[in-house]
C-alpha cells in the first residue's frame, strides 16, 4: 500500500512538479492538493488517511507555519516542509522545527524550480521514506 501524500503549495506549477516527481516513487501516492494552509486544513477534515503532508512556507491566506501550528493538533500525518526558504539551519527551518515539522527540505527557488528532481529529488525521497517509516 503506498503512503498517501497531500501537497500544499500556492504555486500551481510547483504542485505539478512535486506531483510529477511523486509519480516516479512507487511507494507514494498524491491524494490531495491545496493552494494554502486554510484550504489544506479544510481538506484534512474531509480527506482521510493522509500519511504525509508536503508543505510550502510562504503562501497567501494561511502560510505553512500557521498551518503547521493548527494541523499538528489534529492529524497524525507526518509534515515535511518543502520550501525554498528552508535552507539548512536557517531561521525559517528553525521555526518549522519548533512548530513540529517532522522534516525540512529546501527546494530550488526562482526559475530553477523546474530542477526539483535534479536538485532535491534524492533528498526529498529519502526524507519522505524516513518520515513514513518512523
Amino acid at each position, binding site marked *: 500500500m503506498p503512503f498517501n501524500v497531500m501537497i500544499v503549495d500556492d504555486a500551481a506549477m510547483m504542485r505539478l512538479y512535486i506531483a510529477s516527481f511523486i509519480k516516479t516513487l512507487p511507494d507514494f501516492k498524491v491524494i490531495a492538493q491545496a493552494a494554502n494552509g486554510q484550504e489544506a486544513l479544510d481538506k484534512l477534515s474531509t480527506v482521510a488517511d493522509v500519511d504525509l503532508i508536503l508543505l510550502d512556507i510562504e503562501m497567501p491566506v494561511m502560510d505553512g507555519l500557521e498551518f503547521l501550528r493548527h494541523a499538528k*493538533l489534529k492529524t497524525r500525518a507526518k509534515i515535511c516542509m518543502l520550501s525554498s526558504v528552508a535552507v539548512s539551519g536557517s531561521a525559517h527551518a528553525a521555526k518549522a522545527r519548533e512548530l513540529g515539522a517532522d522534516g525540512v527540505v529546501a527546494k530550488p527557488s526562482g*526559475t530553477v524550480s523546474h530542477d526539483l528532481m535534479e536538485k532535491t529529488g534524492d533528498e526529498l525521497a529519502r526524507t519522505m521514506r*524516513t518520515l513514513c517509516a518512523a
Partner: protein
Amino acid sequence: MPRPIALAALLAGPCRTSSAVTFTDAPAAAEPKPAAAPPAPARNLSADPAYRDIFKGMATECTAKLTAILAGFDTDPAASLSRARKEADSLRHAARQMGLDDWSESLTTYLHSTDEQSEPLAALLLSLAELAERSFGTPKPAPAQAKAQPFFDLVREPLADIAAFGTGFFCGETPDPAALAARVEAIRAAAQASRYVRVDEAAARIPATTTPQEYHAAELRLYEELAGVEAVMPDAARASGVSPREMLQGWCAEHVFSTLSELEATLERLKSGHDLDTDYLRFDRLMRLVHHACGHHGIETAGQLSMSLIDLFSRLHTRGQTPDAILAHVARGFIDTVEIVFDAITQGQTPDTASLEKLFEEASNLCFVQDGLVTASAIERRLGLPREFHRVLSPESVRAASEAIEDGLRFFIVRADINNDESLAEAFINWLSSDVARSITNVTVFQGENTLFDFLLASALDEAGISESLAALDPAARNLRMTRMLVPTEATPETAPADPDAAFAQGQQAGVSAEMVEQIGEIAASQSMISHMLAELAEDDLFDSAEAIMRSAGHDWKRARTQMRGLLTGYTTRIQELAQLETQLVGQITRLQEETVEIRSRRIETIFRPLQAFIQTYSRRNRREATTSFAGGELTLDLTLLENLRRVLRNLAVARLELGPGAPRKIHISFHRDEERVLAVFEDDGTPAETSASDDVRTAVTRLGGTLRQVALPGTGIRVHISVPLAMVVLEGMVVGVDGVRYVVPVDAIRMIVQPEPDRRIRVSAAEGREMLRIAENEIVTVRNLSRPRAEDAGRRNVYVVLGAQGRSVAVPVDELVGQQLVLLRPLKGVLTGLPNLTGIALLAGGDVGMVVSANMLCATQPNHAGNPSLRM
C-alpha cells in the same frame, strides 16, 4: 452536520458558479470578489423557520471561526484579517439573501473598516452575539473563545494531579493506578472531544510507564502537546488559569544543567557513529528540552539556535551521516555557551548572548561552508539586499549570484504582479530564461489578497535597458516594474565585524597582542628568507662549479685549490647563515608558543565564584544549604581544561546535593598540580553513597583521560580524588628514540642519563627475573621498557634515562637521545587515552609526533627508594 446544499442552490449569489458550493466554503484565493450589491431576494426568507435554522447554523459556525481567528490574530495579522473578511463576506451574502438587514449592516460595517487591527473583529463578534440573541434567542457566549475554553477547564485539575503523582513517584510513592487512570481518562475525553489526537495519544502513554523516569518523560510529552494547543489558543488557556507551556519551560529550566551534560555525552557518541538512529533521536529530544529552558528565560537567540541545530542534525540523520567537524564544533560551542548563560542567570546576572548570535550566524552558514561556497550573508552584504531577501538565498542562488558578480553583471529587483495574467507570466519567465537576464531568486509579497513576487535578477543591461525590456513586456507598467538597482561592493572577510568596537572586543577576546602580531610577522619574514636561501642553494650545482674550476685549471689541483677553497667556503658560509636563521626562527616560534599558552592560562580561582554560587543556589533549592571552601586557587590551567574541570565538579556537586536528607552541608575543594597532572580533591560531610550521577562524573573524567577515586571518610562524608592530565602546557622535554618511535621525557623528571657497564644490569630472580639497574653504589632501580622488550634487544641498548617522581625512580632504556626541546603538550584523545604511561602527544621539530612520557605513572608502581632499605645499600 448536513451541508446546506439545497439552500446553496436556492441562494447562490453572483459569485457562486456551482450548486455544489456552500456558504461555508471559503472562496478560492484567485476568485474574484463578490459583487458589491447582489440582486434583492424574491421574498424574505427570514420568515421561514427551516431557512432560519439553516442560517442560525451558518452564523454559529462563522462566529466560532471568527473567534478562533481573533485568538490567533497577533501571530499573523495580515492572514487573520484576510480570513476574517472572507468569513464575514460569506455570512453577509447569506444574510442579504435571507433579508436579515441588521446582520447585513453589521457585517458591512466590519468589511468597510480600514482599521487592520483586531479591534473591529472583536466589535463584530460582540455585535453578532447580540444579533444572535435577538434573532434566535441564543444566549450570548463568553466574550472570547467560548468553544475552546472548556478544554483547558477540563484538563486543569487532572493535569495538576498528574504532576503531583509524578513528584510523589520520584519520592518513592507509586501512583494509585485507578486514580491515575481516572485523571488520564479525563484528559483523553477532553482531547477526543476537540479532536486533539496527539494530546490523546500522549496522555494514553502515561499509565503504561513503570519508573519515575519513564513517567516523567511521558508527562513532558503531554505538556508539549498541550503547549501546542495553548499556542493556538493562548487566551483560552489564560482564562482557564493553566499554562502547560510555562510548566514545561519551568521544568526544563530547572533541569537544564543535567540536560546539557547528557547532550554533551550524546554529541560525543554521535561523533563515534555507533548507533546513529538512537543518538540522533536523543539529541533531538534533549535539544528540545534546552529550547524550552531557553523559552523560560526569554533567551530567544539560544532557543532559535537550538532549533537550527535540530534541523542541521536531522538532515544528517536522514542521510545516515555523522556530524562533521564544523557542525560538531558549533554544537559543542552552543552547549558551552548556554551553560555559561544559565550560570549567569542562576547567579542573578545578565547573560552575555553575543557569542550565541555569532554561533547562530555560523549555523545559518553551515550549508554554504560545507559546499565550499561564499555564504548567503556575504552575498546579502555585497549586494546590500533588502531585508525580505535576508536568509532566503539557497546554495543554488548563492552560486548564481557569485557567478553573476564575477561576470560583472548588475543586479535589479523587479516586482511582478503576474498571478492573474498567464500570457504576461509566460513572457516574463521567457525573458528571465533568455540571455538578457539571469534570475537569482524570488520572494513572495502579499498585498491584501494579491500575491506578488519580487525577483532578484542579474543582467548586463543598465537601469534604462532593464526598464526598456520590462516596458516591452508590460507597456502600461502596471504589472512589471523595476524597484531597485543594486551595485555589488568589494568582498569583505566573513568574520569582519562592521562595528569597530565589536572588532576591538573580538581582538580582546582572542587575546592577540600587538607584540604577538609582530612576532608572527618576524616568523613569516624569517621563514621567507630561509625559503629563498634554500631555493638558491638548490639551484647551485656544486659538482658542476667544482668541475668548471678544475677544467679551467687544467685539472691541476694546486692551481685550482684557491678557487676551490673560495667556492666551498662560500657554500659553507651560506649553510651556516641558514642554520643561524633557523635557530632564530625556532626561538621566535618558541616565544610565540609560550605566549599563546600564557594567554590561554587562567588561575584556578576564576572558577571558585561560579561554583560557589551554583552550589549555594542548588542546595537552597533542595532545602539544605551548603557552604563551600576552596584551596589551590593560585595555580594556573589551560582554560579548556579548567572549564572541563568546572563542569565535572559541578556535576559531582549536583549528585551529592540531590541526596535529600543525606546531602552535604559543607564542601571543600582543593587543587594540586605537577608537571603532568592536575588533582582536584572534593570533600564533603554528606552520606557516602554511589549514585548513577556519580557514574556520569566518572565517565566524564575518563573521557578527559583522567581517573576518579572515591573514599568514605571516617564518620560521615566522602573524599573524591579527580586526577586529570594537563593539556596545552609547554614542556621542556628530552626527545628519545625507542624502536623507531619518538618519546618526550620531561626534563624535570630526569635524574640522570647513564651508559652502565654490563655488570651493573642485574636480573632479580626473586622478582620473576625483573631487570634492575645499579645506578650508584648504594642504589638500584627497576628497568621499565617503553615498548615491549624483544629477545634481540638484550644487550643492544646501553643508554638509560633514569626518571624520578614522588620519591621513586625507574631506568628507561632508549635507542638514541635525539635532543632537548620545548614542546606543546596536547591531550590524548579517543583510543589513545588507554595507552599506559603517557600523558599526551607533542609535535616535534621536523614534523614527527612524540609520545610524552609520564614519569609519575612509570614510577607509581615502583617501591619508594627512600623508604625501602632493601634497595638502598
